[in-house]
């Protein structure tokens, strides 16, 4: 990261430009929501824009575009564990997505064939 005042002075303009870009991307996210895209496409667009915005904040405001290797190493480890945290629990329910689960002793669900007994 910059420690020389002259170098910092040069980056000031960049901070404001990134701030403006983040506001523009926020506007695009809201506008994309207004045109009512299909749900999978809407999720993809919103998350891509959020990832771009997040990367800009991390790279420029948090100075990750020029940091020391110890910080990159600790963040790489965090990313690995974050991905595990995000996706491993999903595997445990991947075979039951969209199916109705009743608590033991609960009345039978209308869609479970209860009405077809006769």
């Amino acid at each position, binding site marked *: 990261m*910059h*420690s020389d*005042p002259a170098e*910092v*002075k040069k*980056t*000031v303009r960049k*901070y*404001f430009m*990134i*701030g403006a870009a*983040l*506001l523009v991307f*926020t506007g695009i*996210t*809201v506008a994309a*929501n207004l045109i009512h895209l299909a*749900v999978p496409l*809407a*999720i993809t667009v*919103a*998350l891509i*824009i*959020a990832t771009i*915005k*997040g990367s800009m*904040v*991390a790279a420029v*405001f*948090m100075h990750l575009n020029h940091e*020391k*290797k*110890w*910080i990159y190493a*600790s*963040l790489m*480890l*965090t990313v690995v*564990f*974050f991905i595990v*945290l*995000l996706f491993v*629990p*999903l595997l445990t*329910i991947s075979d*039951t*997505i*969209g199916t*109705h689960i009743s608590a033991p002793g609960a009345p039978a669900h209308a869609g479970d064939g209860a009405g077809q007994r006769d």
Partner: protein
Amino acid sequence: MNIPYTVETRPDTGLANGKLGIWLFLASEVMLFGALFSTYIILRTGAVEWPHGELSVLLGAINTVILISSSVTMVMAWASLKMNEWSKHRLYLILTFVLAGVFLVNKYFEYSEHLALGEGPWASTFLAIYFTLTGLHGLHIVGGMVVMAYFIGPGAKMAKTSPDQFTNRIEYTGLYWHFVDLVWIFLFPLLYLL
């Protein structure tokens, strides 16, 4: 007793201790919010239906603009110190503090509106995860404000006695603040738009 490596960098890591410390803290924060994002995904994918349009997109978008602006003012508070512009540093830090306060006021109105309609966290799975995620994020905003208030008030004395250490402290505060902004950047589309 003097704490070593508050200003000068360690020869082995090339970093001041506080810098590595704040990044390790942020790594733990990633895991904390990661657990809740993971919970959100499980609840969302497992739900037969998911409410849409329950939250005010306008208020959410305004809060996004506020937090992004506060990130700019925060980084400028640090840059001003680096450029030896003390009055600009004070102005930017106070502005960041005020913007954080405005964010919380907006959140208060948003919460009040829901609670008045009986839409508390107990009302649905969506509202439960909404209040949990935004509540935890709101607590982080409060935490950031406490630290900023300290550096606007009594903590500012250090700028005279140890200016380099003070600049580092403002940088670490900024790193935390940008992280809080980053979390909101993902919360806004997930909760308000999708």
